């Protein structure tokens, strides 16, 4: 056979090898080798190809200028990542290389991831802050005013923390007559945020709560973290009861502080904000009352001085002046009337006298007085102006100025 030479060669080669590996065996050896060599390591790189399927696991590629590696972050780890992963983000990742035997691929399984150059929590805070701000959760117009005189105050905090002690101290110091309802919650660690959010929601179902304080005393950023969680922010935003956020110290600003209706720098200040200063309220109330009384008094003064002015006015003092004046006028008119009528009367009388004189002058008696006489017919009593119709013996009546005679015609003269 032509091949007889070559076969022993191949045989020899195989024979010299300790073992022929199957693919599975090879892969397992690669896996062991890689997993031992690259166990619990830190790597730095840039995120790309970020994928978050519904399974909850996160897949991404980490790369630098020349190389890249597939990365998987299982759900349990992914849930613990506080900040939001984004393509292009420089990160530090901690984990181990494993081999996905089915595909013969190696990948980095990470257990911790942090942004490069900034703390993970810090970045998470900034990211959530930016997102909620865009959504309007910090809008000052949405903030509710705190009640001036709350009757029922709820406090969401830990019973064992410093915050509750500080708040109650202020309340005691002010002898405040308020009802306080404490809703104890975990303020740090696993599940704290959910408890706080639930407490805020629960308190909104209890009637007559005027205001609530949500907070805790000082601590590290990790300790305060629950107050930077979105679920707490959402509860505060949704609360119908005004919320005062009082987390840590003055320098600690949390998402809760930004969403709350009022931020107290410390739990002590929260107590001061919420518990009324009775003396001050009483004082301002008394001041308003004084103004009330004064304004009525002023009104009365004004009215009284007005009345006084009227009383002192000329017309009010001499109410009959006008009547007198009218009477005077009336008198004047009457007098005029009288004098005018007198004059008219006089004129009339004079006219009458004139008429009488004129009448007198034309009277036949006047003619008679001058020696004339009137002859009238005895029968008709008419004046006789001619001898016509007269006969001798006819009797005539002759009237003189004084007396009359009956005569008879003796002779007719032509």
């Amino acid at each position, binding site marked *: 056979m032509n091949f007889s030479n070559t076969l022993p060669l191949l045989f020899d080669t195989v024979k010299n090898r300790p073992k022929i590996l199957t693919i599975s065996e090879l892969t397992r050896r690669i896996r062991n080798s890689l997993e031992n060599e690259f166990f619990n390591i830190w790597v730095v790189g840039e995120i790309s190809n970020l994928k978050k399927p519904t399974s909850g696991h996160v897949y991404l590629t980490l790369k630098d200028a020349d190389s890249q590696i597939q990365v998987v972050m299982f759900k349990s780890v992914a849930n613990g990542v506080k900040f939001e992963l984004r393509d292009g983000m420089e990160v530090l990742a901690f984990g181990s290389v494993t081999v996905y035997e089915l595909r013969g691929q190696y990948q980095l399984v990470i257990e911790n991831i942090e942004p490069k150059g900034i703390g993970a929590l810090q970045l998470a805070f900034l990211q959530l802050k930016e997102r909620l701000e865009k959504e309007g959760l910090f809008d000052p117009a949405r903030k509710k005013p705190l*009640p001036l005189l709350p009757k029922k105050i709820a406090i969401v905090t830990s019973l064992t923390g410093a915050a509750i002690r500080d708040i109650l101290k202020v309340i005691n110091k002010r002898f405040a*007559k308020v009802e306080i309802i404490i809703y104890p919650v975990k303020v740090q660690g696993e599940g704290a945020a959910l408890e706080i959010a639930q407490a805020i929601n*629960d308190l909104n179902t209890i009637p007559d709560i005027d205001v609530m304080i949500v907070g805790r005393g000082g601590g590290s950023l990790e300790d305060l973290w629950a107050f930077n969680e979105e679920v707490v922010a959402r509860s505060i935003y949704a609360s119908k009861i005004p919320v005062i956020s009082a987390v840590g110290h003055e320098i600690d600003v949390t998402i809760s502080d930004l969403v709350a209706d009022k931020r107290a720098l410390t739990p002590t200040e929260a107590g001061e904000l919420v518990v009324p200063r009775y003396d001050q309220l009483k004082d301002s109330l008394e001041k*308003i009352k004084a103004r*009330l009384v004064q304004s009525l008094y002023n009104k009365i003064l*004004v009215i009284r001085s007005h009345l006084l002015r009227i009383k002192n006015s000329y017309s009010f003092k001499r109410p009959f002046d006008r009547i007198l004046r009218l009477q005077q006028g009336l008198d004047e008119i009457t007098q005029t009337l009288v004098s005018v009528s007198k004059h008219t009367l006089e004129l009339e009388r004079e006219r009458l006298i004139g008429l009488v004189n004129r009448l007198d002058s034309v009277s036949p008696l006047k003619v008679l007085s001058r020696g004339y006489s009137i002859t009238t017919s005895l029968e008709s009593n008419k004046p006789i102006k001619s001898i016509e119709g007269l006969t001798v013996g006819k009797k005539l009546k002759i009237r003189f100025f004084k007396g009359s005679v009956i005569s008879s015609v003796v002779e007719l003269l032509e």
Partner: protein
Amino acid sequence: MAKIKFEVAIKGLEDIVDRLEKGDLSLDETLSEYENGIKLYKQCVAMLENAEKKMQVLVKDENGVLRTKDFEIKTTQSNDSN
């Protein structure tokens, strides 16, 4: 007493005083406003004085129902006001 918030009452009182201080109301109006003002003032005083101090803690029972329990916590040596 009618259920009215303190700030509402005090605001109402301030409004009345503002109106009265303008001085352009009739005497009748002034008197009735004054009367309302005094009523609000008395309500405010009552609200300031009738409040009572009480402290409770909320607990959730196994059915998730919230119950209140009287509660006392030590805050240094300061005494209770009541």
